[in-house]
C-alpha cells in the first residue's frame, strides 16, 4: 500500500535519499516536498563555480522539473513549513497548506551563523548558503568596488576567490592566526595565504570585527584595533548552525542538531532527520559525503531494510578555488605519541605532511600537489602498517617499489576498494564493474550510473583514467576535446570563461586560461579571435594576424597563390551597369576565369594578390562591396523571383532576401552562414538545405534552420511560422545571434543545433519573446562595428603591407 512521505527541505541530502528510494522501492511512497527556497534541487557544492562564473545555475541543477514529474513528487516551492503536529501526523506551511504524513523527514539543513556585531542587519551584509546569496554577491560585483569576507574557512575563501574573479577588490578577515585552521596546519595555511595574496586578495588574520558601519547600507568595517576597511558588500562565512527550530518546537530530542539513531530516526518513530540538521553519534556534519551516506541509510530504512547503520568516517576536504590544490584529511594535531613526515618544495609551492601514529597514517595535509590524496586516504582507512615504505611514503604511490609509475599505472595499482569519489563514497571496484556490466562508454553515463564525479568533480581525472583502463581504446573522452594542443580546455569552456572572466584580448585569454604555448597555434588563434569579436564587439580590437589569410586579405586564396574575388550581389539580383563593370575589370586585369557561383553571384578567379586593391577600387566605383565569400560569416541569401514575377509566388521572396542580406552582411559567425528565401513551397531557392531558410506561404513565412548540403546532406527543420516580414527578420537575426554566441568555432549551424537541441532553440527564439528581443538587440549592436566594407577600407590604404612585397632585390643587376 502506498504510504505518504512528506519531506521538509529540498537540499542535496533528501534529493539523494529519494533517488535511492525510487530505485529500491519504486511506488512505495507518495512523496510531497516543501521547499523554503523557490527552486528545484541544485548542487550547493557548486555555488562557488557559479559565483566565479565558471558555471551557471542551469549547470548545477540536480533534479529538473521533469524529474519531479516522472516520480510523481509534489513540490511546494517557496513554501516554508511552520509547524509539525505529531499527534495528528500533519505539517502546516506558511501559506496554510496542511499535509498528512505516514513518514516525515526533516531536512532543514543549517543556517549561516551571523556574528552579533552592530550593523549586522545593514543592507549588503549577506551569508553564503544559497543561490540568493550568490545573486546578491553578483549584483554587488557588477557595481565593482570593495568586498569583505568575514571567515577564512573553506566557504569564505571560495567566496573571496569568486568575488575577486568578478573583479572586486577583496579582503578576507579571519579571527584565527592562520587560514582554514580546522583543516590545515599553520605551514599550509601560510602557503594558502600567500597564494591568495598573489591573486590580489588581501588577507588579515587575527582580525576581530568590532562593527559594520554604514548609513542604511554597508560602507565599511571597523576592526578592534581601530582599522576601518571600506566595503560595499560584506559576506559572513564564519560557520553554520543546524536548523533545528521546527524539530524543537515539535518536542523532538535536540542537542546541537536533531538527535537521530544510526538509522536516521528521531525520538519520534514516524519522523526521520538527515543532512546538516541531523546529529548522529554526537556529531553534526557539513560536508557532502557523510550527508549522502545518511541519505543512503534513510532510503534503505524507508524501503524496509533496516540493517544499514551510519558509521562515522573522516571526509577529506578540498578547496574549490581554480589553481589552488589543497587536500586535508583526518587528525593532524601534534602529540607526544605522533610522528610526522614533511616534504617541502618552496619553488614548486608544494607542502605535504603526513601524521603517523603507531606506524599508521592518521592525518594528511597536501598543498600544491594532491594527486596522492586518494592513496593516503586508502592507507589511513585500512590502517595499513606503513613501516616498510616509510622512507618513500611521502613521495606518493608512484614511488613505491623503486621506479616512478605513470599516473595510469598508479590508478591501475589501486585496490578495488580504494575510494575514488569522496563526495559520493564510490570505490574503484564499483566504477570498473559498472562500466563493464552496463557497457558504459562516456563520462556522463558513468556519472549517471555510479554517481562518481557527479558532485564536486575533483575526481573526474581519476574516473577518466579508470574508464581508459577498463575500456582501452573504446573510451574516447570526446566530451571534453581540447581546442588544440595549446590547452586542455574545450571550446565551450573557453567561451564561457571569456565571458565570465571578462577576457578581452588573446594574450589575456592565454594568460588567464594557462595556455601551454607562448602565442597559440593556427587552430586556436582564429577561434579565440572570433570568440572575442563576437563577445566584445565594441571593445575588442580584431587581431588580423590571428585570421586565416582569406579573412586577412578579403579574398579566397587558390591553389596557385592567386585569389578569387566575389562581389556582393544582393539576393542574387544584378543589372547591366554592374555586369558592365565586372566585364571591364575582367578585361583590365586579364582575369582568366569568370564563374557563376552556387550562391547566385559571380566569381572572378586568378587575381594576383598585388592587383586586389585595384580590382576592388574599380568594382567599388560601380557600387559593389565585398561578398565576403571567404568569411566565416554571412555569405549569401539566395532568392527566387517570388510574387513579383512568378505565377506561384506567395510573397516577395526576392525583396525579403535582399532585406535580410542588407541587414546581416558583415557579421562574423562561427562557420559560414548561407541563407535562402523561396517564394512558395516549390522551393526554387533550395531553402530547405540551408543554414537558415525561409519558405513563403500564403499565411506568412515558414522559418527553417539547420540544413546542410556539403560534407553532410540534411534537410532543414521547421523553426516555426510567422506572419510578417518584420517578424521573419527578427527571428532569423535572433537565431543567428544565439548561434554566434554559443557555437564552437567552425561548427556549422546544424551541428550546433543538434548539440543544443532543436526544441531548446525553438523555446528560446520563438516562445520566449524577451530572449528573442535580447538576442536581436545584441546582433544589432554588434553590426554597428561589423558593417564596414573591407574592400573600400583597403582601397583607402588600410593594410597596404599585405598587398605589396617588402622589397625586390637582385633585379636589374648585371650578372657577373
Amino acid at each position, binding site marked *: 500500500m502506498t504510504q505518504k512521505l512528506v519531506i521538509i527541505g529540498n537540499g542535496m541530502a533528501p534529493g539523494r535519499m529519494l533517488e535511492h528510494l525510487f530505485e529500491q522501492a519504486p511506488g512505495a511512497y507518495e512523496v510531497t516536498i516543501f521547499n523554503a527556497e523557490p527552486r528545484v534541487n541544485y548542487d550547493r557544492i557548486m555555488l562557488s563555480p557559479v559565483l566565479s562564473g565558471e558555471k551557471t545555475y542551469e549547470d548545477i541543477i540536480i533534479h529538473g522539473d521533469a524529474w519531479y514529474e516522472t516520480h510523481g513528487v509534489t513540490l511546494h516551492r517557496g513554501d516554508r513549513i511552520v509547524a509539525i503536529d505529531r499527534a495528528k501526523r500533519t505539517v502546516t506551511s506558511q501559506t496554510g497548506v496542511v499535509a498528512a504524513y505516514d513518514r516525515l523527514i526533516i531536512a532543514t539543513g543549517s543556517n549561516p551563523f551571523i556574528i552579533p556585531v552592530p550593523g549586522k542587519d545593514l543592507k549588503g551584509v549577506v551569508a553564503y548558503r544559497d543561490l540568493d546569496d550568490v545573486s546578491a554577491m553578483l549584483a554587488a560585483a557588477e557595481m565593482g568596488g570593495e568586498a569583505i569576507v568575514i571567515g577564512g574557512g573553506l566557504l569564505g575563501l571560495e567566496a573571496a576567490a569568486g568575488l575577486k574573479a568578478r573583479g572586486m577588490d577583496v579582503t578576507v578577515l579571519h579571527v584565527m592566526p592562520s587560514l582554514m585552521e580546522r583543516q590545515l596546519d599553520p605551514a599550509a595555511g601560510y602557503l594558502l595565504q600567500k597564494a591568495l595574496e598573489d591573486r590580489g586578495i588581501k588577507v588579515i588574520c587575527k582580525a576581530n570585527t568590532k562593527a559594520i558601519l554604514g548609513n542604511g547600507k554597508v560602507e565599511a568595517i571597523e576592526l578592534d584595533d581601530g582599522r576601518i576597511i571600506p566595503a560595499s558588500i560584506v559576506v559572513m562565512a564564519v560557520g553554520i548552525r543546524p536548523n533545528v527550530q521546527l524539530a524543537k518546537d515539535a518536542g523532538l530530542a535536540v542537542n546541537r542538531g536533531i538527535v537521530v539513531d544510526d538509522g536516521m530516526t528521531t525520538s519520534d518513530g514516524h519522523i526521520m532527520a538527515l543532512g546538516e540538521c541531523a546529529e548522529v553519534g554526537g556529531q553534526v556534519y557539513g560536508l557532502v559525503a557523510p550527508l549522502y551516506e545518511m541519505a543512503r541509510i534513510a532510503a534503505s530504512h524507508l524501503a524496509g531494510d533496516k540493517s544499514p547503520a551510519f558509521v562515522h568516517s573522516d571526509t577529506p576536504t578540498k578547496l574549490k578555488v581554480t589553481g589552488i590544490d589543497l587536500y586535508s584529511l583526518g587528525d593532524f594535531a601534534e602529540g607526544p605519541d605522533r610522528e610526522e613526515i614533511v616534504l617541502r618544495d618552496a619553488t614548486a609551492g608544494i607542502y605535504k605532511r603526513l601524521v603517523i601514529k603507531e606506524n599508521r597514517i592518521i592525518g594528511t595535509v597536501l598543498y600544491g600537489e594532491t594527486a596522492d590524496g586518494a592513496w593516503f586516504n586508502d592507507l589511513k582507512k585500512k590502517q595499513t602498517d606503513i613501516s616498510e615504505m616509510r622512507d618513500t611514503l611521502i613521495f606518493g604511490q608512484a614511488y613505491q617499489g623503486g621506479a616512478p609509475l605513470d599516473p595510469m599505472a598508479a590508478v591501475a595499482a589501486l585496490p578495488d576498494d580504494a575510494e575514488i569519489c569522496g563526495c559520493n563514497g564510490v570505490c574503484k571496484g564499483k566504477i570498473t564493474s559498472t562500466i563493464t556490466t552496463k557497457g558504459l562508454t562516456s563520462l556522463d553515463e558513468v556519472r549517471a550510473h555510479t554517481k562518481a564525479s557527479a558532485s564536486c568533480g575533483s575526481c573526474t581525472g581519476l574516473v577518466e583514467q579508470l574508464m581508459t583502463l577498463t575500456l582501452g581504446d573504446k573510451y574516447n573522452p570526446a566530451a571534453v576535446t581540447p581546442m588544440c594542443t595549446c590547452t586542455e580546455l574545450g571550446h565551450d569552456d573557453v567561451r564561457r570563461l571569456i565571458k565570465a572572466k571578462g577576457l578581452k584580448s588573446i594574450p589575456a585569454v592565454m594568460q588567464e586560461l594557462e595556455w601551454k604555448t607562448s*602565442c597559440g*597555434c*593556427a587552430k586556436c*588563434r582564429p577561434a579565440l579571435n572570433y570568440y572575442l569579436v563576437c563577445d566584445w564587439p565594441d571593445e575588442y580590437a580584431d587581431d588580423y*594576424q590571428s585570421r586565416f589569410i582569406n579573412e586577412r586579405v578579403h579574398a579566397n586564396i587558390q591553389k596557385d597563390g592567386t585569389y578569387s574575388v566575389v562581389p556582393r550581389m544582393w539576393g542574387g539580383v544584378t543589372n547591366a551597369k554592374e555586369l558592365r563593370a565586372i566585364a571591364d575589370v575582367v578585361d583590365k586585369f586579364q582575369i582568366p576565369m569568370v564563374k557563376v557561383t552556387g550562391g547566385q553571384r559571380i566569381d572572378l578567379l586568378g587575381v594576383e594578390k598585388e592587383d586586389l586593391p585595384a580590382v576592388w577600387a574599380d568594382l567599388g566605383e560601380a557600387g559593389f562591396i565585398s561578398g565576403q565569400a571567404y568569411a566565416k560569416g554571412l555569405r549569401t541569401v539566395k532568392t527566387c523571383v517570388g510574387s513579383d514575377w512568378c505565377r506561384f509566388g506567395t510573397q516577395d521572396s526576392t525583396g525579403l532576401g535582399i532585406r535580410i542580406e542588407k541587414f546581416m552582411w558583415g557579421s562574423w559567425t562561427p562557420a559560414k552562414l548561407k541563407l535562402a528565401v523561396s517564394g512558395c513551397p516549390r522551393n526554387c531557392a533550395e531553402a530547405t538545405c540551408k543554414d537558415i531558410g525561409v519558405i513563403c506561404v500564403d499565411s506568412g513565412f515558414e522559418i527553417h534552420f539547420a540544413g546542410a548540403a556539403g560534407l553532410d546532406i540534411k534537410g532543414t527543420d521547421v523553426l516555426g511560422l510567422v506572419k510578417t516580414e518584420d517578424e521573419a527578420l527578427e527571428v532569423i537575426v535572433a537565431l543567428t545571434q544565439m548561434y554566434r554566441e554559443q557555437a564552437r568555432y567552425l561548427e556549422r549551424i546544424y551541428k550546433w543545433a543538434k548539440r543544443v537541441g532543436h526544441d531548446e532553440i525553438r523555446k528560446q527564439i520563438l516562445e520566449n519573446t524577451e530572449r528573442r528581443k535580447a538576442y536581436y538587440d545584441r546582433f544589432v549592436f554588434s553590426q554597428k562595428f561589423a558593417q564596414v566594407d573591407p574592400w573600400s577600407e583597403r582601397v583607402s590604404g588600410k593594410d597596404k603591407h599585405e598587398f605589396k612585397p*617588402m622589397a*625586390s632585390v*637582385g*633585379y636589374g*643587376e648585371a650578372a657577373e
Partner: protein
Amino acid sequence: MNWKAIGHIDDIPLRGARCVKTPGMNIAVFRTSENEVFAIENRCPHKAGPLSEGIVHGKSVTCPLHNWVISLESGMAQGADEGEVRTFELRNDNGTLSILLDHPMMVAAE
C-alpha cells in the same frame, strides 16, 4: 654572397610576414611575437603554398593551403609531415634588415 638591405623590421606586422622578390625565388620574411626575424623560401614543400600568408605562431608558420607547419628556424616541416624549405640568413641592425643572398639567387632564370 651578398648582403642586401630589404627594409625595416616595422614594415612587417608582429606575428606576420612580408614577401621579398628575387629573380630566383620569392622569400618570406617573418617577424615573431618575440620580435625575432627569419627568412625562408616562400613555397611550402607540400604543394607550393605561399608560406608568407600563413598564421605565425611561436617560431613556426602554418601554410594557408593545407596546414603544414614549417619551422622558421630550420625550414623543416613539423609533426608527421616530411619536407624542407630553404632558409636564409638575416641581419638586424637596430631594425634595419638585410638578407644574405648567394649569386644564383640574383640571376633571373632565363
